[in-house]
């Protein structure tokens, strides 16, 4: 039931920012990154002496970089564990999310981590979806797991 204001009951109106969907194309460089993902390869961008991950169409100084394949192992730079959503409801399974930095790179990837013991400095590698399920996006990687 409506509450009262100075002039009687107050109402509210339901609404929505109604968008059918957004379609984000990868862009010319993104397409190459996406195609590499289909092959199970991860790319970064070489800007001068720096290797930046994930690859972007230009360097932070707007110079044009060069796409290169990124080699593991990946190191956990930071991590967090999501227990609850924004309404405070517990997730079915806690999600471990980590920032994983490849050897010699700046930046890294934010992704799920499946490990018994999670800590900063843990070495990990990506586990990809089966080839036919990949779509050239970040979720082509299922999660990262520790390397022995």
């Amino acid at each position: 039931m409506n509450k009262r204001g100075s002039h009687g009951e107050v109402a509210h109106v339901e609404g929505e920012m109604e968008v059918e969907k957004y379609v984000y194309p990868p862009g010319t460089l993104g397409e190459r990154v996406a195609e590499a993902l289909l092959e199970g390869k991860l790319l970064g961008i070489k800007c001068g002496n720096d290797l930046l991950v994930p690859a972007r169409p230009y360097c932070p100084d707007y110079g044009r970089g060069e796409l290169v394949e990124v080699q593991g192992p990946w190191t956990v730079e930071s991590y967090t564990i999501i227990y609850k959503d924004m309404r405070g409801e517990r997730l079915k399974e806690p999600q471990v999310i980590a920032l994983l930095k490849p050897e010699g790179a700046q930046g890294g990837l934010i992704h799920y981590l499946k490990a018994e013991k999670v800590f900063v400095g843990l070495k990990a590698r990506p586990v990809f979806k089966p080839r036919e399920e990949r779509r050239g996006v970040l979720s082509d990687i299922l999660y990262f797991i520790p390397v022995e």
Partner: protein
Amino acid sequence: MRAAVLGIGWHGFRPSVPELSFAEMMYEAAVRAYEDAGVEAREDIDVFVSCQEDFWEGIAISDEFAPDPIGGVMRPTMTVAGDGLQCVGQAFMMIRSGLAEVVAVETHAKPSDVKTLQGVYELALDPQLRTLGPGNPLFPAGLDAVAYMKRSGAEREHLALVAVKNRNRGLRNARAPHAARITIEDVMASEPVVYPLTAYEIAGYTDVAVNVVIASERKARELKGEPVWLEGIWWSTEVGSGTMEWHEWGRMPSMKAAAREAYRQAGISDPRRQTDFAEVEDRFSFMELLSLEELGLAPEGAHRLLEAGHFDAKGGYPVNPSGGSLSLGTSFEATGLVRLLEAVLQLRGKAGGTQVEGERAIVASWRGVPTYTSIVAVLSR
């Protein structure tokens, strides 16, 4: 020409203000700010600036709704998609350059109108990250918190102590709906939402509208109000923002850069000695400690000073005497203006139960997850 905060008004400060529309809240805050400054809305104000963001409003092209409630109809009115303090930065430039004598800055937030807050936050993430379907889009705060703890040596108890300090302090503040009488034990016994942060350490949401009148020194003297001088204000966004992975985890370079320039404007070389208290970012507990380091108000390892009570209201350097965002709540783009409001009331000696002594203060706000934009202001009596 020096710039002054000449008037400030607000309406709301409850988790939900169901009886007023956002426009009515804007009007109520505006009327109070103009009364406080002694200006006529339709005669004395040269420019109106509103900070807002469509998806927080739930209205596309919501800037069309900005002029009416604040007196800006058929007057120069502009909107900025950013925190309210960024709008204060616009006003500062207009005054300092001589473009305007009086500028009204407005920001409002009705988080209670947003039924799908998590959906709107998720929409702010890079589309690639959205493909992962993270269970809570506030996770970047967890990544920063863990990296900060690792670097600084702060323990979870120190983060909890920030929440305990601020939530308890807010009990003295009539504008703090999220204040609570809590202990370290309460925080530590609570299951994290996004590790290491528990619900006690994540600010709640507050409906509010804030309006600030910024005036030139000449106008401020003429109107005989209670000017609080805006000595400097600067904002900064990290290189590579939009590419969250490039962020320097456990640090906030945007705040460091904004502080450096705001201090330069204010002629401050040693903020710890040259300022008396600060209202700093604390929508997540660890952010207070991180902010203090980036602002040069504490050496690395700010938690040691926190433990010693240095940042208490009665300590050597009071931090968030208002109770901070942990008590006041966050209010989308109005969060920074809320913190400015608290600092202005302090400097006027009108902060009531939260009053601390001081001539000069720092206000530092961050635009929140998933942004890497920060704003720093220096104010004095």
